[in-house]
C-alpha cells in the first residue's frame, strides 16, 4: 500500500511540475562568448533554433509553432537542426532532451531557451523586442 501511494503521489507531483514548466521560455543568463558560427544564424535579425529528430514526436508541433510565428514576424529566421545529423551542435548547446528551442539575437547571443513545445504567443513576445535591436 505504501509503495502504491508513494509511486502515484510522487508521479503526480512530478507530472504537475514538469507539465507546468514544459514549453516555458526562460531567459538565458549572460554567457561568455559562445561560438555560434556553425548554427547558421541570421545576422539581420533574431533566429529561432529548434533541435529535432525523426523519432521526436512533439518536434512537429514545435515546427508548426515556429513556422506560424515566423510567418507573422518576417524578420525572424528559423533553423531546425537534426540532433542525429549534428550532434556537435547539440553538445555545444547542452541539449539533453527533445524538443529544445533557442532564441538568438542578431548578434548571435543566446537569449532564451525552452524544452518542450513553446506557445506561439510567448515566442512572439520574446522575439518582438529583438527585432528592434
Amino acid at each position: 500500500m505504501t509503495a502504491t501511494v508513494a509511486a502515484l503521489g510522487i508521479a503526480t507531483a512530478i507530472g504537475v511540475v514538469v507539465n507546468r514548466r514544459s514549453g516555458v521560455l526562460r531567459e538565458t543568463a549572460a554567457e561568455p562568448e559562445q561560438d555560434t558560427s556553425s548554427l547558421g544564424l541570421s545576422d539581420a535579425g533574431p533566429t529561432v533554433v529548434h533541435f529535432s529528430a525523426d523519432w521526436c514526436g512533439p518536434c512537429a508541433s514545435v515546427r508548426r509553432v515556429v513556422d506560424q510565428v515566423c510567418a507573422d514576424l518576417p524578420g525572424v529566421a528559423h533553423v531546425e537542426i537534426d540532433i542525429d545529423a549534428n550532434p556537435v551542435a547539440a553538445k555545444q548547446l547542452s541539449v539533453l532532451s527533445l524538443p529544445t528551442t533557442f532564441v538568438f539575437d542578431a548578434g548571435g547571443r543566446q537569449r532564451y531557451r525552452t524544452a518542450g513545445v513553446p506557445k506561439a504567443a510567448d515566442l512572439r513576445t520574446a522575439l518582438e523586442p529583438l527585432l528592434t535591436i
Partner: protein
Amino acid sequence: MSTDTGQVDVRGPRFAAWISTAVLVLTLAVSAASTTAAAIILSAQAVVFAVSAWRGPRTSPYGLLFRTFVAPRLGPVTEREPVPPLKFAQLVGLIFAVVGVVGFAAAIPLLGAVATAFALFAAFLNAAFGICLGCQLYPLVARLRRVPAA
C-alpha cells in the same frame, strides 16, 4: 524483430499505460497477501512489456486491444508519435518488471515492491500526464549509440 519504426496514434500508448498502471497497482495490492500471486501477475505484465519492446506498440497486446475496441469509438487521429522511443520505454518497463518478478519469486518482497513501484511510477506518469520517461531517456541512449561512430 519487427521493423515497426513508423508513427502511432498517441492515444494508443496512453491507453496501454493506463492498463499497465492498473496491473501494477493490482500486483502491489496482491503482494501483501501472496508474493507468489504477485510474481505471476507481474510476469504477465513483463511479457506484455517484452512483446511491446520487441514488436512495437501497434502489435503489442494492449495495442491490439486499443485498435480493436477503443480506436473505432474515437475521433480521427490528430497527433502521432514515433515508435522507437516507445519501444525503448517498454524495454525499461521490462527491466523493472523482471527485477520485481525476481524479488517476489525469491521471497525478497521489498525488492519486488520497490521495482514494481518504479514501474508504476513511470506508467502512471505516462498515463495521467503524457510524460514518457523512457522516451525522455531515449535521446541520451541515441547519443551514447553515436559515440563509437564519432
